[in-house]
Protein backbone atom coordinates (compact mmCIF):
# COMPACT_ATOMS: atom_id res chain seq x y z
CA UNK A 1 0.00 0.00 0.00
CA UNK A 2 1.25 3.49 -0.84
CA UNK A 3 2.10 5.69 2.14
CA UNK A 4 -0.64 8.12 1.25
CA UNK A 5 -3.19 5.30 1.14
CA UNK A 6 -2.02 4.18 4.55
CA UNK A 7 -2.52 7.68 5.93
CA UNK A 8 -6.00 7.83 4.43
CA UNK A 9 -6.86 4.46 5.88
CA UNK A 10 -5.57 5.46 9.31
CA UNK A 11 -7.46 8.76 9.12
CA UNK A 12 -10.72 6.99 8.34
CA UNK A 13 -10.20 4.60 11.21
CA UNK A 14 -9.46 7.55 13.53
CA UNK A 15 -12.78 9.00 12.36
CA UNK A 16 -14.46 5.67 13.03
CA UNK A 17 -13.14 5.61 16.59
CA UNK A 18 -14.20 9.23 17.15
CA UNK A 19 -17.72 8.50 15.91
CA UNK A 20 -17.91 5.36 18.01
CA UNK A 21 -16.62 6.93 21.22
CA UNK A 22 -18.78 10.03 21.07
CA UNK A 23 -21.82 7.94 20.12
CA UNK A 24 -21.38 5.57 23.05
CA UNK A 25 -21.72 8.32 25.61
CA UNK A 26 -23.62 10.94 23.64
CA UNK A 27 -20.68 13.26 24.13
CA UNK A 28 -19.69 16.18 21.95
CA UNK A 29 -16.82 17.45 19.83
CA UNK A 30 -17.11 14.85 17.10
CA UNK A 31 -16.83 17.56 14.44
CA UNK A 32 -13.54 18.81 15.91
CA UNK A 33 -12.20 15.26 16.03
CA UNK A 34 -13.16 14.53 12.42
CA UNK A 35 -11.61 17.72 11.05
CA UNK A 36 -8.15 16.92 12.38
CA UNK A 37 -8.09 13.20 11.52
CA UNK A 38 -5.93 13.52 8.40
CA UNK A 39 -3.37 15.69 10.19
CA UNK A 40 -3.19 13.26 13.10
CA UNK A 41 -2.91 10.30 10.72
CA UNK A 42 0.12 11.78 8.97
CA UNK A 43 1.70 12.79 12.28
CA UNK A 44 1.40 9.28 13.72
CA UNK A 45 1.81 7.53 10.38
CA UNK A 46 5.11 9.16 9.50
CA UNK A 47 6.21 12.36 11.18
CA UNK A 48 6.37 11.82 14.93
CA UNK A 49 9.28 9.84 16.35
CA UNK A 50 7.51 7.97 19.12
CA UNK A 51 7.76 4.52 20.65
CA UNK A 52 4.48 2.94 21.77
CA UNK A 53 6.42 0.41 23.86
CA UNK A 54 8.10 3.28 25.70
CA UNK A 55 5.71 6.24 25.71
CA UNK A 56 8.07 8.40 27.79
CA UNK A 57 11.15 7.61 25.67
CA UNK A 58 13.31 10.71 26.36
CA UNK A 59 14.13 11.32 22.70
CA UNK A 60 10.52 11.15 21.47
CA UNK A 61 9.03 14.04 19.59
CA UNK A 62 6.63 15.94 21.83
CA UNK A 63 3.11 16.22 20.48
CA UNK A 64 0.77 18.48 22.42
CA UNK A 65 -2.89 18.48 21.51
CA UNK A 66 -3.89 21.97 22.56
CA UNK A 67 -7.44 21.45 21.30
CA UNK A 68 -7.96 18.94 24.07
CA UNK A 69 -11.69 18.73 23.42
CA UNK A 70 -10.87 16.67 20.34
CA UNK A 71 -9.35 13.88 22.42
CA UNK A 72 -11.60 11.37 20.69
CA UNK A 73 -9.72 12.19 17.50
CA UNK A 74 -6.38 11.36 19.10
CA UNK A 75 -7.26 8.25 21.10
CA UNK A 76 -7.94 6.39 17.85
CA UNK A 77 -4.44 7.11 16.58
CA UNK A 78 -2.89 6.10 19.90
CA UNK A 79 -4.78 2.81 20.00
CA UNK A 80 -3.92 2.06 16.36
CA UNK A 81 -0.24 2.69 17.18
CA UNK A 82 -0.51 0.33 20.15
CA UNK A 83 -0.09 2.79 23.01
CA UNK A 84 -2.97 1.23 24.94
CA UNK A 85 -5.39 -1.68 24.54
CA UNK A 86 -8.40 -1.43 22.22
CA UNK A 87 -10.74 -2.29 25.08
CA UNK A 88 -10.09 1.11 26.58
CA UNK A 89 -12.00 2.71 23.71
CA UNK A 90 -15.26 1.33 25.09
CA UNK A 91 -14.59 2.99 28.43
CA UNK A 92 -14.41 6.51 26.94
CA UNK A 93 -16.37 8.98 29.08
CA UNK A 94 -17.85 6.09 31.06
CA UNK A 95 -18.01 5.30 34.76
CA UNK A 96 -14.56 4.28 35.98
CA UNK A 97 -13.39 4.76 32.38
CA UNK A 98 -9.81 5.03 31.14
CA UNK A 99 -10.35 7.85 28.67
CA UNK A 100 -11.82 11.22 29.59
CA UNK A 101 -13.45 13.69 27.25
CA UNK A 102 -10.47 16.02 27.16
CA UNK A 103 -6.99 14.68 26.57
CA UNK A 104 -5.14 13.56 29.71
CA UNK A 105 -1.49 12.72 30.30
CA UNK A 106 -2.68 9.71 32.30
CA UNK A 107 -3.30 8.04 28.93
CA UNK A 108 -0.14 6.41 27.53
CA UNK A 109 1.08 8.37 24.51
CA UNK A 110 -0.68 11.57 25.48
CA UNK A 111 2.06 14.09 26.20
CA UNK A 112 0.09 16.74 28.06
CA UNK A 113 -3.38 17.36 29.44
CA UNK A 114 -5.38 20.20 27.96
CA UNK A 115 -9.01 21.13 27.71
CA UNK A 116 -8.98 24.85 28.33
CA UNK A 117 -7.82 26.58 25.17
CA UNK A 118 -4.61 28.55 24.96
CA UNK A 119 -2.56 26.24 27.17
CA UNK A 120 -0.75 24.07 24.64
CA UNK A 121 1.57 26.48 22.86
CA UNK A 122 3.19 28.05 25.97
CA UNK A 123 4.05 24.60 27.32
CA UNK A 124 5.31 23.52 23.90
CA UNK A 125 7.50 26.64 23.87
CA UNK A 126 8.92 25.67 27.26
CA UNK A 127 9.82 22.25 25.93
CA UNK A 128 11.37 23.85 22.84
CA UNK A 129 13.44 26.10 25.09
CA UNK A 130 14.87 23.14 26.98
CA UNK A 131 15.67 21.28 23.76
CA UNK A 132 17.56 24.30 22.46
CA UNK A 133 19.43 25.01 25.67
CA UNK A 134 20.31 21.39 26.39
CA UNK A 135 21.02 20.55 22.72
CA UNK A 136 18.42 17.83 22.58
CA UNK A 137 17.12 16.53 19.28
CA UNK A 138 13.45 16.04 20.00
CA UNK A 139 11.01 18.25 18.14
CA UNK A 140 7.80 19.76 19.41
CA UNK A 141 4.49 19.77 17.54
CA UNK A 142 1.43 21.54 18.86
CA UNK A 143 -1.98 21.04 17.24
CA UNK A 144 -4.38 23.90 17.87
CA UNK A 145 -7.90 24.92 16.96
CA UNK A 146 -9.31 28.16 15.61
CA UNK A 147 -10.60 28.90 19.11
CA UNK A 148 -7.11 28.33 20.53
CA UNK A 149 -5.97 31.28 18.45
CA UNK A 150 -8.46 33.60 20.18
CA UNK A 151 -6.64 33.14 23.48
CA UNK A 152 -4.14 35.81 24.47
CA UNK A 153 -1.82 33.21 25.96
CA UNK A 154 -1.41 31.64 22.51
CA UNK A 155 -0.17 34.96 21.15
CA UNK A 156 2.11 35.44 24.15
CA UNK A 157 3.72 32.14 23.19
CA UNK A 158 3.82 33.07 19.50
CA UNK A 159 5.82 36.19 20.37
CA UNK A 160 8.09 34.32 22.77
CA UNK A 161 8.91 31.46 20.39
CA UNK A 162 9.80 33.86 17.59
CA UNK A 163 11.94 36.00 19.90
CA UNK A 164 14.05 32.97 20.83
CA UNK A 165 14.08 31.44 17.33
CA UNK A 166 12.65 28.08 18.32
CA UNK A 167 12.85 26.38 14.95
CA UNK A 168 12.32 23.03 16.66
CA UNK A 169 8.71 24.05 17.31
CA UNK A 170 5.85 23.55 14.86
CA UNK A 171 2.33 24.80 15.47
CA UNK A 172 -0.44 23.37 13.35
CA UNK A 173 -3.88 24.93 13.32
CA UNK A 174 -6.75 22.67 12.41
CA UNK A 175 -8.51 25.63 10.82
CA UNK A 176 -11.98 24.23 10.34
CA UNK A 177 -13.44 27.73 10.33
CA UNK A 178 -16.11 27.00 12.93
CA UNK A 179 -15.76 27.68 16.63
CA UNK A 180 -18.09 27.01 19.53
CA UNK A 181 -20.82 29.53 18.71
CA UNK A 182 -20.45 30.06 15.00
CA UNK A 183 -18.22 30.86 12.08
CA UNK A 184 -14.71 32.06 12.83
CA UNK A 185 -15.17 34.86 10.29
CA UNK A 186 -18.18 36.15 12.24
CA UNK A 187 -16.59 35.94 15.70
CA UNK A 188 -12.86 36.72 15.56
CA UNK A 189 -11.74 36.64 11.98
CA UNK A 190 -8.15 35.42 11.95
CA UNK A 191 -7.48 36.51 8.38
CA UNK A 192 -5.03 37.27 6.98
CA UNK A 193 -3.87 34.50 9.26
CA UNK A 194 -0.61 33.53 7.57
CA UNK A 195 0.48 37.13 7.19
CA UNK A 196 -0.27 37.76 10.84
CA UNK A 197 1.93 34.97 12.13
CA UNK A 198 4.62 35.81 9.57
CA UNK A 199 4.59 39.35 10.93
CA UNK A 200 5.06 37.85 14.39
CA UNK A 201 8.25 36.17 13.19
CA UNK A 202 7.11 32.66 12.30
CA UNK A 203 7.45 30.91 8.95
CA UNK A 204 3.90 30.09 7.87
CA UNK A 205 2.39 27.80 5.26
CA UNK A 206 -1.23 27.26 4.33
CA UNK A 207 -2.25 23.82 3.23
CA UNK A 208 -5.27 21.67 2.56
CA UNK A 209 -5.64 19.86 5.87
CA UNK A 210 -7.32 16.89 4.23
CA UNK A 211 -4.71 16.30 1.52
CA UNK A 212 -2.47 13.76 3.22
CA UNK A 213 0.29 14.07 0.63
CA UNK A 214 0.42 17.81 1.12
CA UNK A 215 0.35 17.41 4.92
CA UNK A 216 3.21 14.91 4.73
CA UNK A 217 5.30 17.05 2.40
CA UNK A 218 4.75 20.11 4.58
CA UNK A 219 5.54 18.47 7.89
CA UNK A 220 8.63 16.79 6.45
CA UNK A 221 9.86 20.26 5.49
CA UNK A 222 9.94 21.75 9.00
CA UNK A 223 11.60 24.00 9.94
CA UNK A 224 10.52 25.99 6.93
CA UNK A 225 13.19 28.55 7.70
CA UNK A 226 16.19 28.18 9.93
CA UNK A 227 15.81 30.15 13.14
CA UNK A 228 12.05 30.48 12.88
CA UNK A 229 9.29 28.43 14.41
CA UNK A 230 6.97 26.87 11.80
CA UNK A 231 3.26 27.58 11.58
CA UNK A 232 0.96 25.43 9.48
CA UNK A 233 -2.54 26.65 8.79
CA UNK A 234 -4.32 23.50 7.73
CA UNK A 235 -7.59 24.39 6.04
CA UNK A 236 -10.09 21.77 7.08
CA UNK A 237 -13.81 21.08 7.19
CA UNK A 238 -15.49 20.65 10.55
CA UNK A 239 -17.05 17.19 10.68
CA UNK A 240 -15.05 16.09 7.62
CA UNK A 241 -16.00 12.66 6.32
CA UNK A 242 -19.58 12.63 7.56
CA UNK A 243 -21.53 14.69 5.03
CA UNK A 244 -24.60 15.15 7.20
CA UNK A 245 -22.68 17.12 9.84
CA UNK A 246 -19.92 18.71 7.77
CA UNK A 247 -19.57 22.46 8.25
CA UNK A 248 -22.10 22.63 11.04
CA UNK A 249 -21.81 24.32 14.42
CA UNK A 250 -23.94 21.51 15.81
CA UNK A 251 -21.18 18.98 15.18
CA UNK A 252 -19.33 20.63 18.07
CA UNK A 253 -22.03 19.41 20.44
CA UNK A 254 -23.99 16.50 19.01
CA UNK A 255 -22.79 12.99 18.31
CA UNK A 256 -23.88 10.58 15.59
CA UNK A 257 -27.09 8.90 16.82
CA UNK A 258 -27.46 5.10 16.94
CA UNK A 259 -29.74 4.86 13.92
CA UNK A 260 -27.18 6.64 11.72
CA UNK A 261 -24.10 4.70 12.87
CA UNK A 262 -24.15 1.95 10.27
CA UNK A 263 -24.58 4.42 7.45
CA UNK A 264 -21.78 6.65 8.76
CA UNK A 265 -19.29 3.78 9.12
CA UNK A 266 -20.12 2.80 5.52
CA UNK A 267 -19.61 6.39 4.41
CA UNK A 268 -16.20 6.36 6.12
CA UNK A 269 -15.39 2.96 4.62
CA UNK A 270 -14.68 1.43 8.02
CA UNK A 271 -17.66 -0.91 8.42
CA UNK A 272 -15.34 -3.91 8.71
CA UNK A 273 -13.58 -2.45 11.74
CA UNK A 274 -16.71 -1.03 13.36
CA UNK A 275 -19.51 -3.59 13.14
CA UNK A 276 -22.91 -2.30 14.26
Amino acid sequence: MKASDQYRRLAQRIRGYAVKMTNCRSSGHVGSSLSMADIVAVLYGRILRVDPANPRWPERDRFILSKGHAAAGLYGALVEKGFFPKEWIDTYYGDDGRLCGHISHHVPGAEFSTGSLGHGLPVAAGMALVAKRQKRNYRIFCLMSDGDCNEGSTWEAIMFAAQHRFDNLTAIVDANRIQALGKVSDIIDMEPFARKVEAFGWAAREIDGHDVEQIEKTLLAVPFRKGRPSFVIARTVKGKGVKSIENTVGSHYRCIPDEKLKEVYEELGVSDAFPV
Partner: protein
Amino acid sequence: MRSLFNKVLLDIAEKNDRIYMVLADIGYGEIEGFAERFPDRFFNVGVAEQNMTGVACGVAMEGNIAVTYSIANFPTLRCLEQIRNDVCYHKANVKIVIIGGGLAYGALGVSHQATEDLAIMRALPDMVVLAPADFAEAEAAVHAMIAHDGPVYYRCGYKKEPALHGGPIDFRIGRAIQVRDGSDLTLIGTGTITYRAFEAAGILESQGVKARVLSMHTVKPLDREAVLAAARETRAVVTVEEHNVLGGLGGAVAEVLAEAGGGVPFLRVGLPDSYIHLVGSHNWLLDHYGFAPQAIAASARRLLEGRQ
Protein backbone atom coordinates in the same frame (compact mmCIF):
# COMPACT_ATOMS: atom_id res chain seq x y z
CA MET B 1 13.98 39.22 52.24
CA ARG B 2 13.73 39.38 48.47
CA SER B 3 17.47 40.12 48.17
CA LEU B 4 18.22 37.16 50.41
CA PHE B 5 15.91 34.96 48.35
CA ASN B 6 17.76 35.83 45.15
CA LYS B 7 21.15 35.32 46.74
CA VAL B 8 20.24 31.90 48.11
CA LEU B 9 18.66 30.81 44.83
CA LEU B 10 21.78 31.87 42.98
CA ASP B 11 23.94 29.87 45.39
CA ILE B 12 21.80 26.77 44.89
CA ALA B 13 21.80 27.25 41.11
CA GLU B 14 25.62 27.17 41.16
CA LYS B 15 25.41 23.56 42.25
CA ASN B 16 22.21 22.56 40.49
CA ASP B 17 22.17 23.07 36.74
CA ARG B 18 18.52 22.05 36.46
CA ILE B 19 17.27 25.33 37.92
CA TYR B 20 15.74 27.77 35.45
CA MET B 21 14.25 31.20 36.14
CA VAL B 22 11.31 32.22 33.98
CA LEU B 23 10.19 35.78 34.59
CA ALA B 24 7.62 38.21 33.28
CA ASP B 25 9.62 41.44 33.22
CA ILE B 26 9.69 41.98 36.99
CA GLY B 27 12.65 41.85 39.36
CA TYR B 28 14.73 44.98 38.68
CA GLY B 29 17.74 45.23 40.94
CA GLU B 30 17.31 41.68 42.22
CA ILE B 31 17.41 39.12 39.45
CA GLU B 32 20.42 40.43 37.53
CA GLY B 33 22.81 38.13 39.42
CA PHE B 34 21.08 35.01 38.14
CA ALA B 35 20.57 36.49 34.67
CA GLU B 36 24.24 37.32 34.28
CA ARG B 37 25.58 34.15 35.84
CA PHE B 38 23.24 31.76 34.03
CA PRO B 39 22.03 33.39 30.81
CA ASP B 40 21.15 29.98 29.39
CA ARG B 41 18.85 29.26 32.29
CA PHE B 42 17.23 32.66 32.59
CA PHE B 43 14.25 33.77 30.51
CA ASN B 44 12.28 36.97 30.62
CA VAL B 45 9.16 36.19 28.59
CA GLY B 46 7.96 39.78 28.70
CA VAL B 47 4.82 41.01 30.40
CA ALA B 48 2.98 37.75 29.84
CA GLU B 49 2.30 35.77 33.01
CA GLN B 50 0.21 33.07 31.36
CA ASN B 51 3.02 32.30 28.95
CA MET B 52 5.54 32.55 31.79
CA THR B 53 3.72 29.82 33.68
CA GLY B 54 3.11 27.65 30.63
CA VAL B 55 6.74 27.92 29.55
CA ALA B 56 7.89 27.15 33.10
CA CYS B 57 5.68 24.08 33.07
CA GLY B 58 7.16 22.92 29.76
CA VAL B 59 10.67 23.45 31.16
CA ALA B 60 9.78 21.46 34.27
CA MET B 61 8.16 18.67 32.25
CA GLU B 62 11.59 18.08 30.73
CA GLY B 63 13.13 17.23 34.08
CA ASN B 64 14.10 20.68 35.31
CA ILE B 65 13.13 22.97 38.17
CA ALA B 66 11.49 26.15 36.90
CA VAL B 67 11.11 29.19 39.14
CA THR B 68 8.56 31.85 38.19
CA TYR B 69 8.96 35.11 40.05
CA SER B 70 7.08 38.35 40.21
CA ILE B 71 5.43 40.67 42.68
CA ALA B 72 2.12 40.38 44.51
CA ASN B 73 -0.62 38.76 42.40
CA PHE B 74 0.99 38.76 38.97
CA PRO B 75 2.40 35.21 38.96
CA THR B 76 -0.68 33.71 40.63
CA LEU B 77 -4.02 35.26 39.75
CA ARG B 78 -3.36 36.30 36.15
CA CYS B 79 -2.27 32.77 35.32
CA LEU B 80 -4.23 30.77 37.86
CA GLU B 81 -5.59 28.35 35.28
CA GLN B 82 -2.08 27.64 34.00
CA ILE B 83 -1.03 26.93 37.59
CA ARG B 84 -3.99 24.61 38.08
CA ASN B 85 -4.23 22.74 34.77
CA ASP B 86 -0.62 22.84 33.63
CA VAL B 87 1.51 22.91 36.77
CA CYS B 88 -0.49 21.21 39.52
CA TYR B 89 -2.35 18.62 37.46
CA HIS B 90 0.94 17.47 35.96
CA LYS B 91 2.75 17.78 39.31
CA ALA B 92 5.30 19.82 37.42
CA ASN B 93 8.36 20.98 39.31
CA VAL B 94 7.48 24.67 39.13
CA LYS B 95 8.15 27.06 42.00
CA ILE B 96 5.96 30.15 42.05
CA VAL B 97 7.58 32.97 43.99
CA ILE B 98 5.96 36.26 44.88
CA ILE B 99 7.68 39.21 46.41
CA GLY B 100 5.70 41.26 48.87
CA GLY B 101 2.82 39.24 50.23
CA GLY B 102 -0.04 40.96 51.99
CA LEU B 103 0.23 44.74 52.17
CA ALA B 104 3.98 45.01 51.57
CA TYR B 105 3.32 47.12 48.48
CA GLY B 106 0.33 48.66 50.25
CA ALA B 107 0.63 52.21 49.07
CA LEU B 108 0.69 51.06 45.45
CA GLY B 109 -2.95 50.09 45.74
CA VAL B 110 -5.22 47.08 45.57
CA SER B 111 -3.66 45.63 42.39
CA HIS B 112 -0.40 45.15 44.31
CA GLN B 113 -1.83 43.68 47.50
CA ALA B 114 -1.59 39.90 47.68
CA THR B 115 -4.33 39.30 50.20
CA GLU B 116 -6.11 36.20 48.89
CA ASP B 117 -3.07 34.24 47.69
CA LEU B 118 -2.81 31.79 50.58
CA ALA B 119 -6.45 30.75 50.28
CA ILE B 120 -6.32 30.35 46.52
CA MET B 121 -2.99 28.53 46.35
CA ARG B 122 -3.99 26.30 49.26
CA ALA B 123 -7.07 25.14 47.38
CA LEU B 124 -4.96 23.63 44.57
CA PRO B 125 -4.20 19.91 44.92
CA ASP B 126 -0.48 19.05 45.16
CA MET B 127 0.54 22.64 45.88
CA VAL B 128 2.82 23.31 48.84
CA VAL B 129 2.27 26.80 50.31
CA LEU B 130 5.19 28.48 52.10
CA ALA B 131 5.29 31.88 53.81
CA PRO B 132 8.56 32.32 55.72
CA ALA B 133 8.56 34.73 58.67
CA ASP B 134 12.12 36.06 58.67
CA PHE B 135 15.49 35.74 56.95
CA ALA B 136 16.37 32.48 58.65
CA GLU B 137 13.14 30.86 57.55
CA ALA B 138 13.36 32.45 54.12
CA GLU B 139 16.78 30.95 53.48
CA ALA B 140 15.78 27.52 54.72
CA ALA B 141 12.55 27.70 52.73
CA VAL B 142 14.41 28.23 49.43
CA HIS B 143 16.39 25.06 50.05
CA ALA B 144 13.26 23.16 51.05
CA MET B 145 11.36 24.46 48.03
CA ILE B 146 14.05 23.31 45.61
CA ALA B 147 14.43 19.96 47.34
CA HIS B 148 10.69 19.31 47.18
CA ASP B 149 9.66 17.49 43.99
CA GLY B 150 6.50 19.24 42.83
CA PRO B 151 4.70 22.59 42.77
CA VAL B 152 5.51 25.08 45.52
CA TYR B 153 4.13 28.53 46.19
CA TYR B 154 6.59 30.76 48.04
CA ARG B 155 5.31 34.01 49.53
CA CYS B 156 8.44 36.06 50.03
CA GLY B 157 8.66 39.21 52.11
CA TYR B 158 9.89 42.50 50.77
CA LYS B 159 12.71 44.10 52.76
CA LYS B 160 14.14 44.75 56.23
CA GLU B 161 12.03 42.19 58.06
CA PRO B 162 13.15 41.77 61.71
CA ALA B 163 14.58 38.45 62.87
CA LEU B 164 12.01 36.27 64.59
CA HIS B 165 14.44 33.55 65.57
CA GLY B 166 17.41 34.12 67.84
CA GLY B 167 19.39 31.10 66.69
CA PRO B 168 19.45 28.23 64.25
CA ILE B 169 16.11 26.78 63.22
CA ASP B 170 14.87 23.35 62.22
CA PHE B 171 12.89 24.14 59.09
CA ARG B 172 10.88 21.35 57.58
CA ILE B 173 7.97 21.69 55.16
CA GLY B 174 4.76 21.03 57.08
CA ARG B 175 6.31 21.41 60.52
CA ALA B 176 5.59 24.56 62.55
CA ILE B 177 8.40 26.16 64.51
CA GLN B 178 7.67 27.06 68.14
CA VAL B 179 9.12 30.50 68.72
CA ARG B 180 8.23 30.66 72.41
CA ASP B 181 6.28 28.43 74.72
CA GLY B 182 3.29 29.37 76.82
CA SER B 183 0.41 27.67 78.57
CA ASP B 184 -2.41 30.23 78.47
CA LEU B 185 -2.99 30.67 74.76
CA THR B 186 -1.34 30.09 71.39
CA LEU B 187 -0.66 32.67 68.70
CA ILE B 188 -0.12 31.08 65.29
CA GLY B 189 1.36 33.30 62.60
CA THR B 190 2.42 32.82 59.01
CA GLY B 191 4.78 34.97 56.99
CA THR B 192 6.43 38.17 58.10
CA ILE B 193 3.46 39.27 60.24
CA THR B 194 4.45 36.54 62.70
CA TYR B 195 6.96 38.96 64.22
CA ARG B 196 4.08 41.16 65.36
CA ALA B 197 2.42 38.14 66.96
CA PHE B 198 5.70 37.49 68.74
CA GLU B 199 5.76 41.08 70.01
CA ALA B 200 2.15 40.68 71.14
CA ALA B 201 3.23 37.67 73.19
CA GLY B 202 5.75 39.88 74.97
CA ILE B 203 3.04 42.39 75.83
CA LEU B 204 0.78 39.59 77.06
CA GLU B 205 3.55 38.29 79.28
CA SER B 206 3.86 41.67 80.96
CA GLN B 207 0.14 41.34 81.71
CA GLY B 208 0.56 37.89 83.20
CA VAL B 209 -0.61 35.91 80.18
CA LYS B 210 1.75 33.25 78.88
CA ALA B 211 1.40 32.92 75.11
CA ARG B 212 2.87 30.20 72.95
CA VAL B 213 3.92 31.45 69.51
CA LEU B 214 4.09 29.18 66.48
CA SER B 215 5.55 30.16 63.14
CA MET B 216 3.40 28.30 60.65
CA HIS B 217 5.67 28.89 57.68
CA THR B 218 3.91 26.12 55.79
CA VAL B 219 0.23 26.84 55.28
CA LYS B 220 -0.11 23.64 53.27
CA PRO B 221 0.41 20.91 54.25
CA LEU B 222 -0.63 22.34 57.62
CA ASP B 223 1.01 21.04 60.77
CA ARG B 224 -2.15 19.54 62.28
CA GLU B 225 -0.28 18.12 65.24
CA ALA B 226 1.00 21.52 66.30
CA VAL B 227 -2.51 22.97 66.04
CA LEU B 228 -4.08 20.13 67.99
CA ALA B 229 -1.37 20.34 70.65
CA ALA B 230 -2.03 24.06 71.00
CA ALA B 231 -5.74 23.37 71.47
CA ARG B 232 -5.00 20.66 73.99
CA GLU B 233 -2.25 22.36 75.98
CA THR B 234 -3.38 26.01 75.95
CA ARG B 235 -6.77 27.59 76.54
CA ALA B 236 -7.27 29.57 73.32
CA VAL B 237 -5.93 29.75 69.75
CA VAL B 238 -5.41 32.92 67.72
CA THR B 239 -4.22 32.96 64.11
CA VAL B 240 -2.46 36.03 62.72
CA GLU B 241 -2.07 36.49 58.99
CA GLU B 242 -1.57 39.35 56.57
CA HIS B 243 -4.36 38.03 54.39
CA ASN B 244 -8.11 38.12 54.05
CA VAL B 245 -9.61 36.40 57.11
CA LEU B 246 -11.29 33.98 54.71
CA GLY B 247 -9.62 30.76 53.68
CA GLY B 248 -5.98 31.35 54.54
CA LEU B 249 -4.12 30.31 57.69
CA GLY B 250 -7.14 31.04 59.87
CA GLY B 251 -9.36 28.97 57.64
CA ALA B 252 -6.90 26.10 57.60
CA VAL B 253 -6.53 26.10 61.38
CA ALA B 254 -10.30 26.42 61.84
CA GLU B 255 -10.82 23.31 59.72
CA VAL B 256 -8.51 21.31 61.96
CA LEU B 257 -10.02 22.64 65.18
CA ALA B 258 -13.63 22.17 64.05
CA GLU B 259 -13.06 18.57 63.00
CA ALA B 260 -11.23 17.81 66.24
CA GLY B 261 -14.12 19.10 68.34
CA GLY B 262 -13.31 20.32 71.83
CA GLY B 263 -14.56 23.84 71.29
CA VAL B 264 -11.35 25.70 72.09
CA PRO B 265 -11.90 29.47 71.94
CA PHE B 266 -10.56 30.59 68.57
CA LEU B 267 -9.98 33.90 66.80
CA ARG B 268 -8.71 34.82 63.36
CA VAL B 269 -6.76 38.06 63.16
CA GLY B 270 -6.56 39.05 59.50
CA LEU B 271 -7.65 41.60 56.98
CA PRO B 272 -11.35 42.33 56.61
CA ASP B 273 -13.15 40.79 53.64
CA SER B 274 -13.03 44.03 51.69
CA TYR B 275 -10.50 45.85 49.48
CA ILE B 276 -7.93 48.01 51.17
CA HIS B 277 -8.14 51.40 49.52
CA LEU B 278 -6.64 53.43 52.31
CA VAL B 279 -3.28 54.85 51.28
CA GLY B 280 -0.27 54.46 53.50
CA SER B 281 2.97 52.70 54.26
CA HIS B 282 3.09 49.00 55.01
CA ASN B 283 3.43 49.55 58.74
CA TRP B 284 0.78 52.21 58.88
CA LEU B 285 -1.69 49.97 57.09
CA LEU B 286 -0.90 47.04 59.36
CA ASP B 287 -1.46 49.17 62.46
CA HIS B 288 -4.66 50.53 61.01
CA TYR B 289 -6.06 47.06 60.37
CA GLY B 290 -5.48 45.69 63.84
CA PHE B 291 -2.00 44.21 63.50
CA ALA B 292 -0.29 46.51 66.03
CA PRO B 293 1.20 44.19 68.68
CA GLN B 294 -0.90 45.95 71.31
CA ALA B 295 -4.03 45.34 69.26
CA ILE B 296 -3.20 41.67 68.70
CA ALA B 297 -2.54 41.28 72.43
CA ALA B 298 -5.81 42.99 73.31
CA SER B 299 -7.78 40.79 70.90
CA ALA B 300 -6.15 37.68 72.35
CA ARG B 301 -6.91 38.74 75.90
CA ARG B 302 -10.56 39.42 75.09
CA LEU B 303 -10.80 35.94 73.61
CA LEU B 304 -9.19 34.39 76.64
CA GLU B 305 -11.51 36.24 78.97
CA GLY B 306 -14.58 35.30 76.98
CA ARG B 307 -15.29 38.93 76.09
CA GLN B 308 -15.02 38.51 72.36
